[in-house]
């Protein structure tokens, strides 16, 4: 039965999204070794995304079935070469005048680029990898964990800047640490096989500032063989890397692809993918077209009305307009499903009401959000039938089926909508009662944490810094001790309607009222609701589905094909996931409405809590990458220290992250795309008609015939919608 999915990321922003994405996978996989969590974590089939192999000593190593295609320099201080240390030594020796090049007897001329520092997080991770955790005493283990947590906090540019300000007393914040994560390797915690990181020639200074940033055709000369210089070789290498990944699959289900397709990476990815399409017929390809926040379709003109526009601005606009159309045409042909994605451009929008720290200007933040959305939306394709105390996953699907559902509805275009964290589901009292009656004690039931469990979690997390649930370390213990029955109906924010879903697809609102205004109507949808909660804590999948259905029934529009999936495993947030959440969001993702209800602490008050200071004994293996180091679990009582910690209304201590959240996503194929494609078409026509646009196309090797093809394809796309409307397909 086809199952494995290969993930490809093309681009520097894509690398960011991909790194966050794999952190999420690694975190979730780590949960399967945690007490209380394993059955929930095992709802997900990790073999879909990870390949495992047995080493000589019998230890298993897990590697993402993934490849990164990015520019040289984008990996920063991380070397993907195995023998980097030896190489550095050789370089040093050569610099010192000693001939250190075994292959040459003549002179050696050393040119050294300024060294790029790795993040403290990456460095600490590597040190921890080498530590023998079994021999560390509790205090040391806890200290090590604290070091890693601190390093992780500094990855977030916002948090790092704040920390630097505190340190310097508000003075200059120019220290390197204040910059936060600059490269994807600064925060990626999965171990990536060096062969799977393909670095393309070019120059790089940031996820959106690099030599391929200037639009779709930016790779035309160098990478695609147009201007000679081994370009075709890069395409061939790309294809070969994909083949190697596929070779490791027993039964490849298909591909998920993240692409900065409004940049030169789009052109390169298209060249690679067209071979992939040929080599793997019948293997669906879901493509996420990544854009910068604010790159919304129909964005306002460059200058305000009446203001003069410079040539450079004209060219820049032409590039954007032409890239959008070229990417859409080429990629939608190569992909089975084309999903344009951009994180919301405004902070604290109604779109993300519980993410007060979200900063749209930070790629580190926006890419994390997109990764969480992609992870959840595709979750139905990698679920198992595992039973849990909260029921088994419902709506388990596979890549092929998901695409079959969505593809015909809107010419292969789909939008992605997100609710993160997903507010509590409306549950009637009877349902709540049923839930309270059962003797289920899920680990993420905030009201059910026992001292022993908290200590165990803390101990285990400390032992396995790479793995799941580091966020829970002190957190679990700081949860107020409540009796289950004390939870009060209405104490958390409720999911009252599906319009609470924020759109991550530029220009596709997905809202019902648009349909009423004739803007479009949903034709096919796939919902994924994971780790759903009610006021009384985690909800069973059956009641989650029931609640979702009742919301769906309220949607007033014409017929629509629908797939719903509910699974008990919430989104587990890894350490490097930025803390975007408002203080009202609790450790496990409840959104606390009031400050002095039973569910949380007092707004700015101080609570005396047990802060577990690490536990003794061996924990369970932490994460995919370190599962190998398995030892027997024998958590003994943790030594608890009494500490005063300020607690937010969400019940989290200051500086303490959210461990897991419920998420609702919707993939939607909607006729709203008709207007969307028309917009692309209009901008293309304008761009390609203008002098600046023609010059850009020339430079990209897009000839007149190619341009005509693009126009035709856009026309054809629009036509598909029109035909469907007439035929009243659904």
């Amino acid at each position, binding site marked *: 039965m086809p199952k494995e999915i290969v993930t490809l990321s093309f681009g520097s922003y894509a690398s960011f999204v991909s790194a966050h994405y794999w952190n999420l996978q690694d975190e979730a996989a780590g949960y399967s070794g945690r007490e209380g969590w394993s059955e929930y974590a095992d709802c997900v089939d990790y073999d879909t995304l990870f390949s495992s192999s047995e080493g000589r000593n019998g230890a298993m190593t897990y590697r993402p079935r993934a490849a990164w295609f990015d520019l040289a320099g984008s990996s920063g201080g991380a070397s993907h070469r195995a023998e980097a240390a030896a190489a550095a030594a050789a370089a040093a020796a050569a610099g010192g005048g000693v001939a250190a090049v075994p292959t040459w*007897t003549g002179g050696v001329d050393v040119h050294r*680029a300024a060294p790029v520092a790795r993040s403290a997080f990456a460095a600490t991770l590597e040190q921890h990898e080498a530590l023998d955790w079994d021999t560390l005493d509790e205090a040391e283990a806890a200290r090590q964990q604290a070091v890693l947590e601190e390093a992780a906090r500094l990855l977030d540019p916002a948090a790092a800047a704040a920390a630097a300000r505190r340190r310097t007393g508000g003075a200059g914040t120019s220290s390197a640490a204040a910059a936060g994560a600059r490269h994807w390797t600064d925060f990626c915690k999965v171990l990536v096989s060096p062969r799977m990181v393909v670095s393309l020639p070019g120059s790089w200074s940031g996820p959106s500032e690099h030599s391929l940033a200037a639009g779709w055709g930016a790779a035309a000369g160098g990478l695609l063989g147009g201007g000679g210089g081994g370009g075709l070789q890069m395409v061939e290498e790309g294809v070969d890397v994909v083949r190697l990944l596929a070779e490791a699959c027993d039964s490849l289900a298909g591909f998920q692809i993240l692409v900065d397709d409004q940049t030169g990476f789009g052109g390169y990815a298209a060249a690679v993918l067209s071979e992939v399409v040929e*080599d793997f017929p019948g293997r669906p390809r879901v493509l996420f077209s990544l854009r910068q926040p604010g790159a919304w379709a129909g964005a306002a003109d460059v200058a305000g009305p009446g203001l003069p526009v410079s040539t450079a601005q004209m060219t820049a606009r032409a590039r954007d307009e032409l890239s959008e159309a070229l990417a859409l045409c080429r990629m939608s042909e190569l992909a089975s499903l084309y999903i344009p994605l951009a994180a919301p451009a405004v902070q604290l929008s109604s779109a993300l009401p519980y993410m007060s720290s979200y900063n749209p200007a930070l790629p580190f933040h926006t890419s994390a959000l997109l990764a969480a959305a992609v992870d959840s939306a595709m979750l139905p394709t990698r679920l198992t039938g595992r039973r849990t105390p909260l029921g088994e996953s419902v709506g388990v699907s596979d890549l092929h089926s998901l695409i079959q559902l969505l593809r015909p509805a809107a010419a292969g275009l789909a939008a992605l909508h997100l609710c993160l964290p997903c507010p509590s589901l409306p549950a009637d009292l009877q349902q709540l009662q049923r839930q309270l009656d059962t003797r289920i004690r899920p680990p993420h039931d905030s009201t059910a944490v026992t001292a022993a469990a908290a200590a165990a979690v803390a101990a285990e997390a400390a032992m396995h810094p790479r793995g799941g649930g580091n966020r829970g370390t002190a957190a679990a213990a700081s949860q107020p001790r409540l009796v289950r029955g004390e939870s009060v109906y209405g104490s958390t924010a409720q999911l009252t309607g599906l319009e609470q879903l924020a759109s991550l697809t530029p220009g596709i609102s997905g809202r019902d009222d648009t349909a009423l205004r004739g803007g479009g109507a949903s034709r096919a949808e796939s919902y994924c609701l994971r780790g759903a909660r009610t006021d009384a804590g985690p909800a069973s999948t059956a009641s989650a589905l029931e609640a979702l259905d009742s919301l769906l029934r309220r949607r007033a529009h014409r017929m629509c094909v629908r797939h719903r999936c509910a699974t008990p495993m919430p989104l587990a947030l890894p350490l490097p996931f930025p803390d975007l959440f408002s203080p009202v969001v609790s450790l496990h993702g409840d959104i606390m409405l009031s400050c002095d209800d039973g569910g949380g602490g007092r707004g700015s008050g101080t609570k005396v809590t047990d802060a577990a200071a690490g536990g003794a004994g061996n924990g369970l293996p932490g994460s995919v990458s370190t599962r190998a180091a398995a030892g027997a679990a024998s958590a003994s009582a943790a030594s608890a220290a009494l500490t005063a910690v300020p607690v937010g209304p969400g019940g989290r201590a200051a500086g303490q992250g959210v461990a897991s959240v419920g998420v609702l996503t919707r993939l939607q194929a909607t006729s709203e795309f008709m207007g969307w494609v028309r917009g692309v078409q209009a901008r293309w026509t304008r761009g390609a008609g203008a002098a600046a646009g023609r010059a850009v196309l020339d430079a990209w090797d897009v000839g007149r015939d190619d341009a005509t093809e693009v126009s035709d394809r856009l026309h054809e796309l629009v036509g598909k919608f029109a035909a469907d409307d007439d035929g009243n397909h659904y």
Partner: protein
Amino acid sequence: MSSVKTLNANAEVMNRAAALFMNINAAKGLMDVMRSNYGPKGTIKMLVSGAGDIKLTKDGNVLLREMQIQNPTAVMIARAAVAQDDITGDGTTSIVLLIGELMKQAERFLSEGTHPRVLVEGFETARKATLEFLETFKQPLPTPPAAADADGTAPPAVDRETLRCVARTSLRTKLAEPLADQLTDIVTDSVLMVRRPNQPIDLFMVEIMHMRHKLDSDTRLVRGLVLDHGSRHPDMPKRLENCYILSCNISLEYEKSEVNSGFFYSSADQREKLVAAERAYTDERVHKIIELKKKICTEENGKSFVLINQKGIDPISLDALAKEGVIALRRAKKRNMERIQLACGGFCVNSVEELAEEALGHADEVYEHVLGEEKYTFVEGVKNPHSCTILIKGPSDHVIAQIKDAVRDGLRAVKNGIDDGGVIPGAGAFEVAAAHHLRTVTRKSLAGRAKLGLDAFAEALLGLAKALAENSGHDAQETIIKLQEEHERGNVVGLDVVTGEPMDPVTVGVYDNYIVKRQMLQSAPVLAGQLLLVDEVMRAGINMRKQ
């Protein structure tokens, strides 16, 4: 490299004199960066990235790629070098030096008031004359007596010894001597192996593979293939001898995904039936292959069976094949399918209906090699290989990469030698002879100031020989004079880089490719001319900046 980076002027608004000045400086600047690389005694460049990764190169082309060149003039020169590499695979350093020298020589005359146009005309005359002279300087490959069994099925015989010299000359400019000498035969023989009658030489049929190995550095020629993957079944044999090789492009996996989806079936029963039907379909194909195997691999002939598939093979199919003692590989590289055919014989089978003994190839042995996390499969001992593999083992990625680059250059040089049907004596011999020819013969046919351009051109050619001398630690002036004197005695002379004395490159066996010299002579003076006639250049420069 800083000399290149600092030449970052804004070309758009420059007046003509300043622009000319900038062009000359950019060309000289780029030459300065590359000059020390030139020849067998040049320095190697070690580029250390911000992450500490190393890149070793002595190759002009690689170096140009690694530099972030922004100056528009330098970009134009770099493009000419890239074109040189695309067309010939060599001579990128030479072409940058020649352009730099031409500009440097021109500068002298310009400062004395000569108009650029005059120089450019002289360049053009000299260019044509030098190209003509090149034809006379070319030494045809000796033709060995045709083999007795020459019946058109084998490519015409070529002189291996001369080609070995070409390979060695090329390799020694990139690798230390012992290593270069070790690779000489490997490189020469690989090209000779993949030659086929009446077809252009396809160097893709020589695969260059590498293995990183802490202790082992060694390069060998595998008469056959090395695949970068192994079988995916624990019970499959790790080694087989006397093998039939079936290469095919047939899906041996159960892949009809729609069968799995819950959406489209009215009943579980219906779905079950479809699942079974699809499985049976896949199994059928596997059984056809096993049937063939059973038929042709008998106890008497002791043959075994290897399956190399471009498509997938799922665990159930692997299991069935493993039970029959077959080694089965899945998802082989497309190009390897072609290579198997050329190495082992047989042909790639696209459907089970085509299965037959005639489709199969042969190899003496097929075995798996495990190295750390990586697996390799060797297909060796093939009858008449028209495809082979050069396997490089080395301690580190950067050393492997450097050897790979050198091997590629060597292969290209041997292929050029065969395609050209001749070679050019190297070690500066051609440059010295051509300069002499220009001054003594061509100059006579010119009148007036056009001679100035010709003189500059001749001097620039000598600049290459001087660079060779300087890089080997000899005094350039003195060496050149010695070479010229020896040449005037009527000998073909090159520079002995060790002693600094004249030597005969033909006896020593230092040969360059004809096509490399020709391409360089065709393009370098033209570009230098454009750079001197600065109005045109500016337009080109602006064009380039736009991208």
